[in-house]
């Protein structure tokens, strides 16, 4: 089977040779930390799948479905360890130069209707011809080719996450109460951009397998948006996007959700979004098997492997693999460490993880070469 066939068979509960062996990559500090533990210099985030023998997450037909153009980046202040700047989403941020992670947001350009209409609406014109790449025809020809072995995906945007990024958690939290009409108008605007751009992609002939959305809208304690607002404002628009995708043959839609999602899953499923990515164990002890019991086979899952056990060592890793194996065998689930591998995981532990998942979930069948393991033996 090709990667594409295997992914689709897994998510449709159909016969397959084995489960996809995937990874959600690493914190930026992780690979540098592993250099002294045996990781070769040439292995980077961009090519680590090849080194560790991981199946890819496919290929995306990229378009400009967000702010266009993005805001000009401007450095305000720089020290040896920190950088203060205006980023390409109009935010004043402070970020560490020694540790890559979410920066500290000092100020957001999007505050109210005036700033929305002045700075953001002009960047969210759905019919901007520049939203599609100039080489779209060649891209579509390549992705539609019978030789295409990787999963073909489209990006269907974000109805909350982008607005939250533009306004901040506090800003959007106030907005839903202070000016609910404006909040809904923002969501509608972004939704229309997705509908227009996806429509043009499909009209141009793209045949996609799956779609991905990005929200990052939950934290360890629950959703950042009130579920009733989610249900009233977001769910109908998710459904519009999902319906458009289904009309064009895309029936698998994953959402990068993060955090404690249990109060939102029903709404996403109702709208037609059927893959939660990544189900996080580390933040709130989510149990993939419990999710399957509660929501049935309509709900597909990715992630769900407790990355904390990677630090603990081989016995804990083996136990976590055993815990997840029944669900892996059932299908509709592609496990990987739940939210990127952190630098406190020893390289040797990760190699143990790779070796074991190739044996247990990969069944040793049709696996990609794994130079990491070959060089370790």
């Amino acid at each position: 089977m090709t990667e594409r066939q295997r992914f689709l068979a897994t998510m449709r509960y159909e016969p397959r040779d084995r489960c996809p062996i995937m990874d959600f990559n690493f914190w930026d500090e992780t690979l540098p930390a592993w250099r002294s533990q045996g990781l070769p210099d040439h292995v980077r985030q961009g090519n680590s799948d090849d080194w560790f023998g991981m199946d890819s997450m496919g290929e995306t037909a990229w378009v400009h479905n967000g702010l266009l153009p993005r805001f000009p980046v401007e450095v305000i202040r720089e020290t040896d360890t920190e950088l203060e700047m205006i980023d390409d989403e109009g935010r004043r941020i402070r970020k560490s130069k020694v540790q890559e992670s979410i920066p500290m947001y000092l100020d957001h350009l999007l505050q109210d209707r005036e700033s929305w209409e002045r700075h953001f609406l002009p960047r969210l014109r759905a019919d901007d011809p520049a939203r599609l790449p100039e080489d779209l025809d060649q891209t579509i020809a390549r992705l539609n080719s019978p030789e295409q072995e990787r999963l073909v995906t489209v990006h269907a945007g974000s109805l909350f996450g982008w607005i939250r990024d533009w306004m901040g958690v506090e800003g959007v939290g106030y907005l839903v109460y202070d000016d609910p009409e404006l909040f809904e108008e923002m969501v509608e605007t972004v939704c229309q951009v997705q509908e227009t751009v996806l429509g043009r992609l499909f009209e141009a002939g793209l045949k996609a397998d799956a779609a991905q959305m990005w929200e990052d809208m939950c934290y360890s304690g629950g959703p950042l948006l009130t579920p009733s607002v989610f249900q009233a404002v977001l769910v109908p628009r998710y459904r519009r996007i999902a319906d458009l995708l289904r009309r064009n043959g895309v029936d698998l839609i994953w959402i990068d959700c993060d955090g404690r999602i249990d109060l939102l899953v029903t709404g996403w499923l109702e709208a037609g979004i059927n893959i939660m990515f990544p189900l996080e164990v580390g933040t709130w002890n989510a149990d993939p098997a419990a999710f399957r019991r509660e929501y049935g086979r309509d709900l597909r899952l990715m992630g769900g492997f407790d990355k904390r056990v990677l630090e603990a060592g081989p016995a804990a890793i083996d136990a976590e693999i055993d815990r997840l194996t029944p669900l892996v065998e059932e299908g509709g689930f592609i496990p990987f460490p739940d939210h990127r591998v952190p630098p406190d995981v020893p390289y040797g532990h990760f190699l143990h993880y790779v070796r074991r998942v190739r044996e247990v979930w990969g069944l040793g069948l049709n696996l990609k070469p794994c130079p990491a393991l070959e060089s370790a033996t």
Partner: protein
Amino acid sequence: MTAFMAVMTGSLTWLGPLVPGSNLDIFSLFDLHQGGIRWQRHRRQIVDLQPLTQSIVGGKRKDAKEHTEQALAAGVGPEAILAALVAGMDEIGGRFQRNEAFVPEMLIAARAMKEAMSVLEPELLKAGIRPEFTAVIGTVQGDLHDIGKNLVAMMWKGANFNVVDLGTNVEAERFVAAAQEHQADLVGLSALLTTTMPNMKATIEALKAAGLPKTKIMVGGAPITQEFADEIGADGFAPDAAGAVQVARTLMAG
């Protein structure tokens, strides 16, 4: 519950008349003062503080300010008004823990509290009423995340703690200096990254080495567990902002 009992148990939400049909209420006779009771010299109007509490619960900042102004104008003691505000924050905190309220509701409640406090604070100061406890809070060194820390700070302020917010990426020495300067009863350490969790331990060690016998230390953040809190010698841990208020109160009571 009678008004008197409500006052004595600290769950003041309504101030009814002492004599049915009269406008003589408990505050015609007594006034709260720093945990004690003193004679009140002037007669006051009967004021129902429940709408004030509910304005906090509902995050209605304009109402919160107006109800506070009205209560003050009617002669209600500032400490009673403060109790009504804190009751509102407690209510929204409880709803948050029961998944009946979420981050936006917490935010607007805290904002309404802040608005009401802008009116009430000068009156509290005039009456010599200050927060009983001072808390220093910050995100530990190496960590720039502040959303969780901000929510806890808001909730602590809502619970009438004097909160000194040191921001993010705070070195252990700054926590120690601030705890000493403000004679902190409580220090709150926040971290989102597993890689900065060791800095929590280092900060706790520095605080303990500084010899601050009355200062309790709380930790929190997405990767933090009770087990980790115990391991590094923290006095308390809470999984969320509302829980942080309960734990802080327990620590202060102990």
